[in-house]
């Protein structure tokens, strides 16, 4: 009696976990793929051909990103949501309308099927919210220890309407710089989810799709010169990249930069600077002075841009560098992130 019951339990248990067999291309693989296809529900994917076949006319934008965030669940999201929104946003930052995504996963043997389903559901919801379809995918399974739970790569295609030329090298002297909301939320949310830190905060990741905002911006102004979503390295790094690539100077005002109180608190506590902390749902827009007010207005009207502020200007001085005007009226250079941010006490 006992041994049989044990065996049944073991089978039940095994059935809930990813096995190497799930990656071997056989029956289990097909079962897994079918469950994804059911969730993502679109014609190109449902064909289950080796490639999705899509029709286009016009300029295409194409991007790819891999996601290895730890932990895979955090306040405000999970690795799946991050993967979809991240690629959608990269497309939006060149003024493209995101259309199709691919999603490839590398899963560690032993990963729970229930958790996998949870992540896939999350990707599905994020894709719908952003108005994109996941039309191609792949799943590989590697032995225990060869990956940390799950890694996801997403690639994306979008269409750029004619007349739109948005690029990091297009910032021009006199452009005003608009930041769409509070910075540092994502990085701090991840930090707080790691057990090592003994503090509790309600800060949530800001992972969200920005293509809606960009669409609204382009409706009122085709003269947006540059867009960037500051992810790793934070706002400071993105501004530096644009200053360098456009060969211009940038001046921003510290007081104007929106930061949540709690994010400030954690940063003070650990010695971090919010300007260098990762975001996943914010953008900076470089807009000529005369379009600035209406672009700011339209960003603020969008639910993901309520806290938007004009934070600075593009100048001809100190080309390639970013300067910050401090709260007491002083000035300092804002460099790119060097190394990791080491939390300090002494």
């Amino acid at each position, binding site marked *: 009696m006992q041994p049989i019951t044990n065996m049944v339990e073991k089978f039940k248990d095994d059935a809930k976990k990813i096995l190497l067999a799930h990656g071997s291309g056989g029956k289990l693989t097909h079962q897994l793929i079918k469950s994804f296809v059911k969730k993502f529900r679109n014609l190109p994917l449902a064909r289950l051909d080796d490639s999705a076949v899509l029709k286009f006319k016009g300029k295409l934008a194409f991007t790819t990103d891999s996601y290895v965030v730890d932990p895979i669940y955090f306040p405000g999201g999970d690795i799946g949501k991050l993967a979809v929104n991240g690629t959608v946003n990269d497309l939006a930052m060149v003024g493209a309308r995101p259309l199709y995504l691919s999603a490839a996963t590398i899963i560690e043997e032993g990963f729970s099927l229930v958790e996998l389903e949870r992540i896939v559901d999350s990707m599905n919801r994020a894709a719908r919210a952003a108005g994109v379809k996941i039309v191609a995918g792949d799943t590989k399974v590697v032995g225990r220890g060869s990956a940390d739970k799950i890694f996801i790569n997403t690639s994306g295609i979008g269409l750029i309407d004619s007349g739109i030329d948005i690029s990091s090298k297009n910032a021009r002297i006199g452009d005003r710089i608009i930041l769409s909301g509070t910075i540092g939320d994502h990085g701090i949310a991840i930090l707080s989810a790691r057990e090592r830190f003994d503090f509790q905060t309600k800060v949530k990741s800001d992972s969200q799709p920005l293509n809606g905002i960009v669409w609204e911006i382009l409706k009122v102004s085709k003269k947006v010169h540059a867009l960037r979503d500051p992810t790793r390295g934070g706002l400071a790094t993105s501004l530096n990249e644009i200053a360098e690539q456009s060969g211009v100077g940038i001046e921003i005002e510290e007081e104007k930069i929106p930061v949540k*109180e709690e994010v*400030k608190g954690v940063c003070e506590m650990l010695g971090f600077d919010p300007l260098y902390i990762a975001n996943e749902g914010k953008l900076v827009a470089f807009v000529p002075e005369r379009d600035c007010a209406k672009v700011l207005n339209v960003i603020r009207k969008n639910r993901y841009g309520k806290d938007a502020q004009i934070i600075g200007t593009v100048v001809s001085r100190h080309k390639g560098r970013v300067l910050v005007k401090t*709260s*007491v009226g002083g000035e300092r250079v804002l*460099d790119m992130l060097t190394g990791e941010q080491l939390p300090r*006490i*002494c």
Partner: protein
Amino acid sequence: MKFVDEFRDRAIAERIVKKIKRFDSLKVNLMEVCGTHTMVIFKQGLKGILPKNVNLLSGPGCPVCVTSQEDIDKIIELAKDENVIIATFGDMIRVPGTNSSLEKERGNGADVRIIYSPSEALRIARENPVRRVVFLAIGFETTSPLIAASLLDVQKEKIDNFYIFSNHKLIPPAMEALLESKEVRIDGFICPGHVSVTIGSNAYKFIAQKYNVPCVIGGFEPLDVLQTIYMLLKQIKEKRAEVEIEYFRAVHPQGNRIAQELIDEVFEVSDVMWRGLGTIPKSGLRLKSKFSDFDAEKEFQPKTRKSKENPDCACGEVLRGVKKPTQCKLYRRICTPEEPYGPCMVSSEGTCAAYYKYG
């Protein structure tokens, strides 16, 4: 944030600077002893709004920066022991020793963990009873009471796998050593706010009286620093040399008695070696003999070959206020935050790091 935001008001800052500018006849060198003050000065861009007759010198108040090369090499040796877990505040990880660094050793498999509080180190010790935890106790008088308190807890709980690498240093003796060396004229000291929370303003009286140098203990918000500078200029103008407290919302003349008692219970004063300053008598803390069981150096006896500093690295002179980082041969050309040659470029409170990042 309460007690933070109000002390960053621009209008008040402008008013204080206006008052500072009235002392235009004075040409003074003011030294901020504390690395955190250096950071505030740079992050807030204070040098740019102060008049040129006020010259700010950075002092040796960065505990990682003043750790001797030999001590760093010993720490790196300890990390190589596969039975040892090194628990440290973040800064030490990237400091280059003669041949390696904690970061490099971590890449080679050493167990080096960054913590924010000694209690985390204790937790690591409890959770890893088979390994031995060495906590790098590097800091000044702000931190030593906490380490003392933690060791008392370790003793009470009978945790037997916890050690500290005791590298605490004391600020007033270093200030005296700088004045004795007469290398740089120091007209006033911006004294460290949080060290003074522990030791009290009375601890600086001998500096004012014996050397006739004004001391003002300043807080860490930009208005605190500006006000501290104003108070120093006022003393200099009025030919006074006293110890004043700008940061009186947290600092008292006698300091924190409980903190001092904690230090006294666990540590005793000793002569220690400072990078850039040499050996300064009675300027450090070592464990009292009844706590010698927790002494990592005694327990592990880390052996190092000849410890060498890079001869072109000017950290020592920067720490004494003799050179500015820009006067170091390696600064920026070879020594950068990504590839540091000395601790002053690595530490988040290092003067070279401040110049590089914000200057």
